[in-house]
């Protein structure tokens, strides 16, 4: 069923009791042309683009829990592309291009809101490095502009720009095409659209092994629901990528850390945009429900526990109160943690692996949500063509041997 004002009206007449299931929960077939491991936004998107753009519709998405229950449902929903290096700018901007009009394409309300992302500069070094970012972005065709403290205040009124603060606002870089989207809708929208094109979405189906033939090429996967054959396997397993890759005998340059975030009690609209501060180390936006959504950096130790210690949440909140003293009496409602897979250079790995037929999309670290459509498209392209697209070609695994790193670590490690 196509969602529209007419279908809404028609279903209202039957008391909203006859809406069809958005996507059926399938049992696995014996064989597929391609299997995607991981049913988050990236994996479901990859299956959708495989079917939609690259003509492979006999695809299964295997998810160990429920779709969108991993990092897709555990982020702070920020979308932006103001990255420093050419390779990153191309990759993230491809995603931002796809975000535009994605709701229409999927016939699903993603609540994508281009409300702008403002990155605050609090010292001379910040000012210089952000201005460099602004210029680098503009050379790459990525919108980003420099605002004075007064312009920052005009754009984001709750901000305190008093020069007497401990971390005074000395300016900010604003990307207007950036913003937020409803993260669950991204998973559900991709799942529904992919399912319509013939993709099987299989939940509660953990992959426990990867079977390979005598030449080492993949033959299929062992799962909790039995063996499923496929000559092409795309892994999009975020924090658990190392675990899946080990099944194929590969060791990846990844470490998995918890990344925590929290929301406040809902309040009336006060934050018109997303504000990030690298120096004070936090970021904040307001959801359409009215909750202030707050996040910062990863926890200090590696973990798969999907939770973290309270003292780090205290740090996050303290940082927010430092930039926005107005929120000092705001009470926090709930917090959560996702497991993010971090590469040494803080750039993702999207492409082929040394094992034939095995493809990977991982290493997005703390910034995977914004890249969802772009990463999904690039993984789908690589799986379909057995070769990377020119956008994801630099994000290969070999760069850790050859040394051609895309070192966003210094530029973007904190605020995602």
């Amino acid at each position: 069923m196509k969602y529209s004002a007419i279908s809404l009206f028609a279903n209202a007449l039957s008391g909203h009791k006859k809406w069809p299931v958005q996507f059926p929960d399938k049992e696995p077939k014996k064989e597929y042309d391609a299997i995607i491991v991981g049913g988050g936004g990236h994996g479901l998107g990859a299956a959708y683009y495989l079917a939609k753009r690259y003509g492979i519709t006999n695809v299964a998405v295997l998810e160990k829990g429920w779709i969108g229950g991993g990092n897709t449902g555990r982020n702070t929903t920020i979308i932006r592309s103001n990255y420093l290096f050419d390779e990153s700018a191309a990759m993230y901007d491809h995603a931002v291009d796809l975000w535009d009009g994605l709701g229409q394409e999927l016939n699903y309300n993603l609540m994508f809101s281009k409300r702008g992302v403002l990155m605050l500069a609090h010292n001379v070094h910040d000012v210089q490095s952000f201005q460099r970012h602004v210029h680098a972005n503009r050379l790459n065709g990525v919108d980003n502009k420099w605002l004075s403290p007064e312009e920052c205040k005009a754009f984001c009124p709750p901000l305190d720009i008093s020069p007497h603060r401990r971390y005074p606002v000395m300016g900010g870089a604003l990307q207007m095409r950036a913003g937020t989207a409803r993260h669950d809708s991204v998973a559900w929208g991709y799942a529904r659209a992919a399912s319509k094109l013939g993709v099987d979405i299989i939940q509660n189906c953990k992959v426990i092994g990867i079977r390979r033939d005598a030449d080492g090429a993949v033959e299929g996967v062992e799962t909790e629901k039995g063996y499923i054959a496929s000559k092409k396997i795309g892994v999009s397993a975020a924090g658990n990528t190392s675990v899946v890759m080990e099944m194929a005998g590969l060791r990846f340059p990844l470490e998995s850390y918890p990344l925590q975030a929290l929301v406040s009690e809902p309040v009336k609209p006060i934050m018109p945009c997303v504000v990030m501060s690298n120096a004070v180390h936090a970021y904040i936006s307001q959801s359409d429900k009215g909750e202030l959504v707050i996040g910062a950096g990863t926890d200090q130790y590696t973990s798969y526990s999907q939770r973290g210690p309270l003292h780090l949440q205290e740090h996050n909140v303290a940082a927010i109160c430092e930039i926005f003293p107005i929120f000092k009496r705001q009470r926090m409602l709930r917090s959560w943690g996702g497991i993010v897979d971090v590469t040494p250079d803080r750039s993702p790995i999207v492409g082929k692996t040394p094992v034939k037929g095995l493809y990977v999309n991982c290493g997005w670290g703390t910034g995977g949500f914004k890249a969802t459509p772009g990463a999904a498209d690039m993984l789908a392209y690589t799986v379909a063509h057995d070769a990377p697209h020119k956008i994801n070609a630099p994000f290969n695994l070999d760069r850790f041997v050859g040394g051609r790193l895309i070192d966003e670590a210094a530029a973007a490690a904190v605020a995602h």
Partner: protein
Amino acid sequence: MFEIHCPYCNEKRPEIEFAYAGEAHYVRPTAKEQSEMSDEDWSRYMFIRDNKRGEHAERWWHNAGCNMFFNAIRNTVTDKFVMTYKMGLPPRTDKQIDAARRTDAKEKASS
């Protein structure tokens, strides 16, 4: 917040006194080894870490306490510390880890 047993202070202290310091028993190749190493081996040393789901040998630093580094076995799924031990001791064997797990369970039962 964890309570971590520092093997030098020989007491449990709150997590905020400690800093995580990466995988344990990671040996830097000597200058001679480095000069003869292949790019692949160097990459393995530089970038590949044991990103284990389960019991993980790792270094911790008691930086707001005695300032000593020590090693620990921690389960990365539950975040529970199985044991901590002094720097310079060889990697723990499965038997030693198992024994530590049993002592911990016994202590819990008696308390």
